[in-house]
């Protein structure tokens, strides 16, 4: 199954009086879809990746790891493939707002590139939902 495109929430100081809701994309291993962030035409300066799961969307064992990596060269702002891992624990399920944050990652080197950030599960089924915040 093709990877799912994630639409990031773009926050900018030019328009920061408005609030925006995060768009979540489910990342699964069965079917093995994964998700990606397309950096084509990117004009931001950093990105924060957010992961969450709740009792309603977890059907796998806890502790599954989702890896963040770049497609083209397995590097993402100096990090090697697999360096960035989000390991979801039972504590993340807690309400309210059970979510974990990673970043900020410098995206300046991706400007006008056609690279993607890939998000994959290493085990589990329907293990998590991902969102991303780009800061301009």
């Amino acid at each position: 199954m093709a990877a799912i495109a994630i639409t990031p929430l773009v926050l900018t100081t030019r328009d920061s009086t408005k609030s925006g809701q995060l768009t979540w994309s489910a990342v699964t291993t069965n079917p093995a879809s994964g998700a990606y962030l397309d950096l084509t035409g990117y004009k931001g300066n950093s990105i924060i990746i957010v992961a969450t799961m709740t009792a309603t969307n977890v059907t796998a064992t806890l502790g599954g790891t989702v890896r963040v990596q770049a497609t083209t060269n397995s590097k993402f702002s100096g990090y090697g493939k697999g360096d960035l891992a989000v390991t979801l624990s039972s504590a993340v399920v807690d309400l309210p707002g059970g979510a974990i944050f990673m970043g900020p990652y410098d995206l300046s080197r991706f400007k006008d590139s056609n690279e993607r950030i890939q998000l994959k599960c290493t085990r589990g089924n329907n293990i998590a939902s991902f969102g991303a915040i780009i800061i301009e």
Partner: protein
Amino acid sequence: MARNELTPLFLTTRDCTAQKKMAEWCAVDTGTGCYIDLTNYKGDKIILAICKTATNVAGTTATEIQIQACTNQKFSGWDKGDLKIRGTSNVNATNFKGEFCGPFDLSRFKDSAERININCTAGTNVGWVGAIIIE
């Protein structure tokens, strides 16, 4: 009732391989509100987040949370009341639905004693507020 102090989550490029939970989700209601103390602040920007779930919503869907500065009613150039996070019915879902606003430049608050106050304008126990400071 005294305000509750909100502890922000610090994210820094020096340690961005780490994964972190929000340092604190602070309940905001019309009676108390909460605040972020900017004393000794060394960061760069702040993002504010709101979430509410089926278990903690007692207000109307149009309820707003307003963000304002304590000392002079100004917060990086915005007037009191300019900055609002409106909790909508979409935010009220069983899955975590985050709503974010910012980033706000905090450079002028460096070494100040100001606070960001967060208030509800209507409703009771309307939501949970978190904050992310980016260094």
